[in-house]
């Protein structure tokens, strides 16, 4: 892993904790940025690299949970590792439901934290890739004509050409032509691949509608 390939953010109101975590994380070769409050972190522009957030639950002003909610609202997806001096179960449940990656009680074993960070970064990296594929697929899908989108919708449902033609009141030949254009434009080498791509698009159709 290179230092440029990822970033770990630490948000804690306690300077000692910030310094200690920073040193520990840097000791395994990760880049670290520390913030003394949630507001301070929010002022930073969203990261482009795979990253994770080590967040203290109890802080003056916005608490860790507040920050988690705020980030979700802003659509800034980042895995969060909560650390707390006195974690309780309701708080843990709340954090995990909101998508927390890990919940650690202070003081924690160094390895537990570092493992959690590595896993979070890997997950973030994967989700970043997924996010990149989706953008490509959306772009490709946008190149289809309306007739081709209609045909594609029916084809990925597994309908034979004949039935597609019947449904669309066109000839079977026409269906075949559309189908070839679709495969070309979507860069799908086979029908299963087309199905996977359209499935991905369909899952993220809501953001698409907002985009």
């Amino acid at each position, binding site marked *: 892993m290179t230092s440029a390939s990822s970033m770990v953010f630490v948000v804690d109101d*306690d300077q000692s*904790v910030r*310094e*200690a975590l920073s040193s*520990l994380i840097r*000791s395994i070769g990760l880049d670290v940025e520390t913030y003394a409050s949630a507001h301070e972190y929010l002022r930073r522009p969203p990261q482009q690299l795979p990253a994770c957030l080590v967040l203290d639950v109890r802080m003056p002003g916005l608490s860790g949970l507040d920050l988690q909610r705020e980030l979700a609202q802003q659509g800034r997806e980042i895995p969060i590792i909560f650390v707390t001096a006195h974690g309780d179960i309701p708080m843990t449940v709340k954090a995990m439901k909101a998508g927390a990656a890990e919940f650690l009680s*202070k*003081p924690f074993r160094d390895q537990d934290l570092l493992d959690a960070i590595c896993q979070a970064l890997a997950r973030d990296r994967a989700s970043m890739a997924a996010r990149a594929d989706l953008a490509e697929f959306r772009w490709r899908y946008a190149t289809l004509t309306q007739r081709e989108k209609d045909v594609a919708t029916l084809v990925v449902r597994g309908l034979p050409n004949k039935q597609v033609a019947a449904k669309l009141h066109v000839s079977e030949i026409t269906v075949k032509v559309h189908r070839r254009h679709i495969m070309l434009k979507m860069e799908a080498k086979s029908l299963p691949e087309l199905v996977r791509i359209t499935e991905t698009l369909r899952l993220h159709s809501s953001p698409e509608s907002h985009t």
Partner: protein
Amino acid sequence: MHHKQAVDVQINDLISIQALPAIWSGQQSYAIVGILLEGVVRILQLDFAYARVRDSLLDASIELIRLPQCRALPISAEQFRQDLRDCLGGDLPTMPVAIPNPLGQGVVKIASFHFGVHDELGVALAASQRSDFPTKNEMLLLRVAGSAAAIGMQEARVLNAHRRAADELERRVAERTAQLTAANEELSREIVERKRAEGAALVLKDALAFELSTMTRLHELSTRLAGNAELQQILEEVLDAAIGLHNADFGLVQLCNTETGGLEVVAQRGFSKEFLEYFRDIRDDTSAAGRALQRQACVVIEDVETDPGFAPHRAIAAAAGFRAVQSTPFRDRGSKPLGIISTHFRRPHRPTEHDLRLTDLFARHAAATIESKLAEDERRKLASLVEASPDFIGIASLEGEVQFVNPQGRKLLGLEGDFAASIFELVIEADREKLAKQALPAVTRDGHWDGEIRFRNFKTGHAIPMQQRIFSISDAATGRRIALATVSRDVSESKRTEQLRQESELRWRAVYENSAVGIWLTDAAGRFVAANRALQDMLGYTEVELQKLSLNDITPEEDWEGAQARIDQLRERSIPEYHAQQRYYRKDGCIIWGNTSAALIPSVDNAPNLLVEIIEDISARKQTEGALAQAQADLARVTRVTLMGELAASIAHEVNQPLAAVVANASACRRWLAAAPPNTAEASDAADRIIRDAARASDVISRIRGFLRRGELRKVPLDLDEVIHEVIGFVQDKLNTRLIELHVEIVPGTPRVFADRIQLQQVVLNLMLNAIEAMEKVAQPRVLRLAVGSHGENAVRIAVSDSGPGIAAAQRQRIFDAFYSTKADGIGMGLAISRSIIEANQGRLWATKNAGRGETFQFVLPTAAPGHP
């Protein structure tokens, strides 16, 4: 013999002879001669002496002979005379001669002497056996003696002559006197006889006069008695008459008391109060009156001093001054004893039969009068009773004709003036049959009938309900029925009252029976007299079961005292009623709470007072209250636990932060050192931070330790305003939820104190929490007052006051002891720790009772030294 002695003897003898006339002076001749002979025999020591004298009085010769020492003549006088005559011859010798001793042996010498110039008065012989007899002197003595005797005899003769003359005179006088006396006696006898006759006539006359006066008096008395005299007056008249009759000194009249059977003095003359008191109520037969009453006959005690039966009363009789008494009983016509008339006498006395007979007559007469008087009084009383009676009293003939109606009866029936009516006319038509078929036959059969028959008012015609008693009146002597009578009462008023009472009773019974609240009545001993349905349901007992119980049986034992005290106050009338929340046992053993009101029901007719208690079952409300209190207590506990949890959490946070940093730094340090090549700079930085953070953790821990128990203090100058407001922040919630007003008074310019901040806050917090808890159960307003100000030159006082109940005197001593708590769930450390904290800060903490409600806890702390601004 000496001459002198002889002379002396002779002189003596002569004197003796000379003394003889003194002895015989006034005597008769023979007595004189006798004395003379005795004298010479003795003086001249003769063997005998003899004399023959002529007694002038007797006019006869008397011979006398005397022997020495009065010896009797050993021979007969005749013999002696014969012997003497034989010796001397007829004449007495003029010269002494010796002759044979006629009285013995030998010879005696005889000397003769004579009485008178010649021997006309008599002659005497002296004889002695002495040979020298008679000497010259002896002869002389004899002659002297003879002369003296002669003189004496002459005197005697004269005296005799005088005496004889006197005797003669006396005899004649006596004779005459006897004659006169005889005549006189005759006369006297006649006089006496006449006087006796006259006396008898007089006595008879007196007796007749007395009898007459007595009879007159009796008649007068009867006349007066028959008049309208009062009984007392009659009694006194009778008594005076009896006293006069007996000529007695005192007297009294006693009447039988029919109730006690004793005798009561009703009239008296001459007795003291003490005496009357003594004989106030006679029953036994020791007194004359008592005896007379018992015997029913006149009793006379002639002398109380000697009468054995009267012995017990002698002293009082003596004091009263009488010795004799007579008591005469008197009886009514039925021979029933009525009383006694007694008269008393200063001297022992026995009244004559005549007097006693008269007294008896008197007494009988008085008795008749007294009896009629008594009967009249009785009649008058009865008459006034009838007149004044509020009842209807009427008398009718056996045939039913109304003869008498008393005024009240007339008024009731509207009868006026004379009227003639049948008893049936008095009765309303509807009840006439009842009178005829029920009442009158019952009266005939049983003598009386009780029941209700309505009369009618003659003016208004209204029916008057009457409770009647109809009865027949019988002649006392014959027992024959002579009239019908009724005593009856108008019951219309009582009927109305009864009706009202019944209505009231019904109303109240309805209230009592249907009331939702329990009602009971208890007697003085707390026993149930009555209990209504609601109470029975409330307590689970039937009324019969309750009537076997007392108040204490259904009251928890620990409440007895209070309940009894309240009841006592009611009974003593110190309170008119009371209202209290009390607990009762149900039959099933459960406790119920009652809102109890109690009052005393005043008794009528001296019956014991009853207590009425009204109980509203408030168990449900109490339960709710209990649950609420429980919930509050739970909440308080939860709050406390939460507070503790939060405290623990903040402690954990405080310690955990540096601890977490230390752990993280240590891990980092190891990793920097384990890197290839080791990054010593980073490792060193991490190690430095470890030291710093560990120190910080330690710091926190030591502060907490100091907070919890005595440890190192961090004394700094503290601004109390700031410290206290931080603490208020902790308790604000509690103050709000418990509606406690907080008054904070911090005097401006109060100097800072020199103390450990956390400890100080701990103490203030503890005191405030205590104050809040103390006011949990008191009514509004609940006020927590925090006052801060200077205390002298170098100290500041912080006072926390509440308006709670205050601390009980018994607990006051112990509240600062460890493990002593007045709170149910307190561990008893708060005040102990607070005090040790304040003392560790050179201050002191104490508690004082407020003037009004509640308690004030206050402490003083030294101000910050000038070096610490």
